């Protein structure tokens, strides 16, 4: 117990916070990448890439930390989840590879054909990464068939259920909206105007897919809404989320992009908090037999390790936040290309 909450729950919260941080930070990188081909001019694409240039690598670190946090705190879940999501996980990782090298390689040759090829790979990789993230999230929410040893018993097709596909598309819409707002914040003149239009369209796209997902959840996935329905206090998170979503079109109309960006970040956070509330205390729900579910109790490492991990998190997190803040502050303002740019 630490501050009245047991260590397993603490680590669930820490892990959730890291994943939320990852979704907010890499979310705008991935979204910016996913909409990359909507920008037609070479210079616009360059500016868009340089908007995320100095920060995307630092943002991806949150995924690395998340992987380590799951591995260390809930090794059983780490083992089960990644061997279950074998191919989606590898497609996700290979997508990340291409995203990284596309950003790095694109600018190294001046030829337009070279650059166009990398633009395509970059955007495609970002879309694949986002969709596979959404697909995995959808399946975690829905649950997977597990046996008594908590091993996955389904096959590849298990992942492609309507709910998870819907979540994947919603994630793509969410990140594209988030990314467009971020890019609008970082650009000027005609590119800015173009991005404001894109941001508005993606917001509509997101609201539609989100409404469908919510409806589907309420109708067909009762275990993903029963806790919030039975505890009115938790309604605060969906409520904040709805207000934040509703706020985005209003802020976009007023061209207050920083506030809109904060709103879309809050949307992502509340969405994941709502998922976490429903999932808790499971890490992976066994859809065939709830008794086989992987929980924060049966998947956890020892209390001693949890204590060490919390110590590491308490020391490490402020440091990470300080220098992440410093880097964002250094590159604040509109993108300005110079000879160091991509």
């Amino acid at each position: 117990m630490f501050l009245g909450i047991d260590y397993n729950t603490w680590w669930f919260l820490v892990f959730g916070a890291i994943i939320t941080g990852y979704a907010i930070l890499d979310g705008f990188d991935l979204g910016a990448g996913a909409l990359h081909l909507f920008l037609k001019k070479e210079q616009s694409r360059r500016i868009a890439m340089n908007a995320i240039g100095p920060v995307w690598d630092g943002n991806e670190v949150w995924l690395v930390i998340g992987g380590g946090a799951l591995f260390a705190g809930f090794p059983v879940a780490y083992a089960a989840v990644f061997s279950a999501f074998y191919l989606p996980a590898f497609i996700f990782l290979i997508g990340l590879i291409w995203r990284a090298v596309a950003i790095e390689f694109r600018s190294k040759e001046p030829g337009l054909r070279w650059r166009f090829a990398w633009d395509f790979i970059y955007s495609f990789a970002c879309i694949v990464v986002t969709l596979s993230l959404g697909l995995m999230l959808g399946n975690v929410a829905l649950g997977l068939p597990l046996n008594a040893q908590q091993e996955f018993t389904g096959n590849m097709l298990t992942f492609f259920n309507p709910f998870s596909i819907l979540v994947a598309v919603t994630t793509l819409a969410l990140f594209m909206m988030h990314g467009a707002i971020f890019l609008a914040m970082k650009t000027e003149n005609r590119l800015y105007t173009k991005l404001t239009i894109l941001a508005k369209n993606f917001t509509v796209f997101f609201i539609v897919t989100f409404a469908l997902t919510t409806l589907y959840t309420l109708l067909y996935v009762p275990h993903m809404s029963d806790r919030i329905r039975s505890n009115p206090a938790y309604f605060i998170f969906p409520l904040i989320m709805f207000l934040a979503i509703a706020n985005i079109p209003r802020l976009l109309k007023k061209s207050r992009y920083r506030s809109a960006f904060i709103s879309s970040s809050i949307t992502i956070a509340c969405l994941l908090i709502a998922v976490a509330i429903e999932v808790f205390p499971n890490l992976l729900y066994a859809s065939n037999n709830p008794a086989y579910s992987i929980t924060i109790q049966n998947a956890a490492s020892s209390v001693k390790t949890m204590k060490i991990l919390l110590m590491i998190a308490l020391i490490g997190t402020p440091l990470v936040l300080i220098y992440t803040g410093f880097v964002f502050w250094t590159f604040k303002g509109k993108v300005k290309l110079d000879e160091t740019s991509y």
Partner: protein
Amino acid sequence: MSTEILARIQFAFTIAFHYIYPPLSIGLGLILVIMEGLYLKTKREVYKTMTRFWIKIFALIFGLGVATGIIMEFEFGTNWAVYSKYVGDVFGSALAAEGIFAFAIESGFLGILIFGWNRVSSTVHFISTIMVFFGSLFSAVWIVVANSWQQTPAGFHIVGKGLDARAEITDFWAMVFNPSSMQRLTHVWIGAFLAGAFLVLSVNAYYILKNRHLEIAKPAFKIALAVATFFSIAQLIAGSVSAEGVSKNQPAKLAAMEGHFDSNAVAPMYLFGWVDENKQRTSGVNIPGGLSFLVHKDFSKPVEGLNAIKPEDRPTQVNAIFQFYHIMIIIGVASIFLTLYACWLWKKGKLFDKRWLMIVFVWGVLLPQIANQCGWFTAEMGRQPWVVYGLLRTSDALSAAVKANEILTSLIMFTLVYATLFVLFLFIMNRKIKKGPELYEADDEETDHFGIRENPMVT
């Protein structure tokens, strides 16, 4: 092929490919700190130009390191689920610490290192360079600690039985400072410094051969030569300390490294040779009693051989381990002679006169790369059949839910992707090197290349 072999091939392939890049980042990080430090101290343009040139190369290498590294973190879970459960407490903690204490520093400050030249003061930029270097050093700390714990487990106890057994930490610092971690870390660090130094030597030797960028190539070559010489010699010491550690902690591995079978015999140390595993005989050029001396400080005492170890607990592929180990040593010794000879010429003022020496240095970039790979193959194959030495067998560590064809599919996917990446990497490196360092105009904050005006406020 069996699931186990496929999973092992996949791991070996992805980690070996990954390991081309991080040592280069660590080594180049050190060189960048030296170059930029010299620039700040002397304010001479040559140091600035070389720093900025190598930052660009560093960015490319770092990018590939990140892209291929992230795979590794998740591959434990995908292919080695039983292993992940078994070591999660220990290995996972080290990995989490790596993420938050090392990788986050590296990636955070990388943005400033690459893009911040005109944005921050030269001191802040220099601090960022140092932070990126430190981040890469810390990364190596946690990764080597995690791997060393697999070699020489410490600070834990086993809970549960059979396939449910897992190692739990009892003493975090005993886990971190397990018997082999510090000596192996030193060995790995120095290997990385050499990888970076030899890359810088190679590129600048190429410029000197082509008679290009001489005003930058010559001083850069000298900086890298100083680093390479110092660490080649240091590696001799670090390497033998590490070998001594292996003799204490993992006698089976040491016996395989030297192809030593008979426990009652005085053990020679081979310069090179061949192991016939069926006949249990090793032939080649050797120092009689050399291994006995390493282990016992006595040329005539017998050393425990592979025969003393139960057949199912012995490493297989003894000849491969022997060869990897000896290639590493031959390269290590060759590096010492090569760098010392170059230093001697430097002292006589004739460093750049011998064309053949420059040609050797152009290809010399491969030396530490091959040695680093061989060293890891020795360490990891020598640990077999264990994935955690003496505790968990590699054959027991697999994911039950994953089938051989899935691993084969992902293996083919990785082979294609990595082959493409490698070709592109060489292509772009080649272009960058051929283009060479650029002289930058004096920084002008008002310059805008695309008619974009700076607006410091986000609106």
